[in-house]
C-alpha cells in the first residue's frame, strides 16, 4: 500500500490471512477482558501480549482482528484465528509505543504490517 510505511505502527508474522480496519483495543488482563465483555467490540482489533487464547475467549468471536506481541504460527491464538477467518498478526514488533496507538483506528495489512488508518482519529 503506497504511503503506508509513513503510518507504520508495527510489523509481524501473518498467522491468519486477511485485512481488517478497526480500533486498537488492548486486552492484556482478565480485568480488561471482563470490561470488554459488556461492551460493543464489533469495531475492535484486539491487542494482546501473549498468544494464549483462553484469556480472550469471551470476546474473540466478536472482534475484527488480532495483533499479538508474542507467539508464532502454531500458537493457540493463531490456530483459532485461522478457523474464525480472523486476520491475526503474531510476534508483532511495534515501531511506535503501542500505548500511543491505543483507541486509534488501525489497519492490518496482508503482509503483516499494522498501520494507522488513513483517516484514523
Amino acid at each position, binding site marked *: 500500500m503506497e504511503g503506508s510505511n509513513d503510518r507504520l505502527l508495527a510489523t509481524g508474522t501473518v498467522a491468519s490471512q486477511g485485512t481488517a480496519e478497526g480500533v486498537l483495543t488492548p486486552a492484556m488482563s482478565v480485568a480488561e477482558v471482563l470490561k470488554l465483555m459488556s461492551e460493543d467490540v464489533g469495531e475492535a482489533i484486539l491487542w494482546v501480549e501473549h498468544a494464549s*487464547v483462553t484469556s480472550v475467549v469471551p470476546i474473540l468471536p466478536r472482534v475484527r482482528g488480532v495483533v499479538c506481541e508474542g*507467539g508464532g*504460527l502454531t500458537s*493457540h491464538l493463531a490456530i*483459532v484465528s485461522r478457523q*474464525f477467518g480472523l486476520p491475526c498478526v503474531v510476534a508483532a514488533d511495534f515501531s511506535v509505543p503501542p500505548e500511543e496507538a491505543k483507541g486509534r483506528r488501525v489497519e492490518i495489512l496482508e503482509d503483516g504490517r499494522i498501520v494507522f488508518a488513513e483517516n484514523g482519529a
Partner: protein
Amino acid sequence: MSGALDTFSPAEVDATITTWGVAQSETMRRENRGQLDSELFDIRGRTWVGFECYFRAVPEILTALAERVSPEEIGRRMKRPGCRPYYLQLFMLMSNYLCAREQRLLVDGVLPETDPAEARRLQAVVEFFARAMRAYREDGGLVPVAPQYDQRILGAEWVGRCAELLGPADELPRISRALASISLYVFLMHGEQRDGNFDHGPYRLEDGTRMLVHEVNDLDNDYLPWVDADGGLEVGSVCVAYALRDVDTRFSIFAGCITDPADFAARVERVAVFTAEGEELRPLGAEELEALAERALRLQGEMYGRIVEWPPIERSRYARWLYANHILPFLRIGEAPDLVELLSERFEAIGQEAAEEFATFSERPAVFRSHLALPDGSMFSPAAVVG
C-alpha cells in the same frame, strides 16, 4: 503378548527416550513452546503440578492397567476417528514423566533410576508408551519423521468409511466458523492446553487427493469440575475430513499439523463433518454443527466466569484434574473403571502438595530455566546404568 511392562531391555528404554527426546526438542524449538503464557492460568505452575503427578503416580497406574490389557491392545483400540485417548495422551506420558525426571537430575545431580525401584518405574512408562504407540500408528513408529512427517493412525477400512462421507465443500466457511467456536470451548475447558485438537493423515484417496482429518474431542467431558454440571456438548467429538490437492502437510508430536499453504481452504475439493458414536460415524449437518457451536459459546462464557473467580493457587492446582483427564481415557478404553478412583485420589493428593510447593519457590524450577528453555539435541538424558 504379555501386558506386563517388563519386556524392554535397557537399550530399548534408552533408544525410546532418545527418539522421543529429539522429536520433542525439535518441536519445542520450532513452536517456541517454552514462551507460552496466559493471563488466566499459571502455565508454569500447572505444568510443574502435572509433572509431579505423572512422576509419582502414573507408573503404578499404567502397570495395573497393563496387567489387564496389553499396551498393544490399547493402541489398537485407539485406531479410529474421534477416539479419546489419542496421540496427545501418549505424548503426555513421556513428556511429563521425563521432564519431572530431568528436574530431579538438575536438583539431585543423579537420575532417579540409580535406585532400582525407580528404574522399574521409568521402564513401565517408556515401555507402555512405545508398545501402545507402535500399535497405534500405521507406520509402527513412535513419532512423525522426516521427510514426510506423517501421522497416519487409521487403517484402510476407516479411511474408506471417512471417505464415503466426503461431499461438496461449498459450506466450508460455515463449517470453519462453527468449528472455531467449538475449538475455543475446548481450549478453555483444557486450561490452555492443546488437548482435544488432533490432526492426522494424510491418507491417499483414489481420486489423487489426500485426506487430512481434524478432530475436536472430549466435548462431552464429565470429569473436569469446571465444566458445566449438566455436561458439555451433546456429542463427544466433531471430526472434519478434508480431501486436499496440492497441500503439503507436516505433523508434529503435539498432534497438530502445519500445512503449506497455511490457509488451504481454496484447495479443499471435498469435505465431511461427522461425529463418532461408538463404531458408527454419524454425519453432522451445518445446522447441527452451528447449534453445537452456539451451545459451546454459551458454555464457555459461563466457564470463563467460574475460572476467573479461582483463588490464585487454583491457577496451578487445577492441573491435578487437568492431567488426570489425560490418563482417564486409557482407563476407560482399557475397561478398568476401578482404577479411576485410584487415579483421582493420587492426583488430588500429589497435586495439592505440588501446588503448595510451587507457590513457595522464589524462582522458576531448574527444568524450566535450563532444560525446557533452550533444548539442544535430545531433551532427555539416557537411562542411568543401575549397578
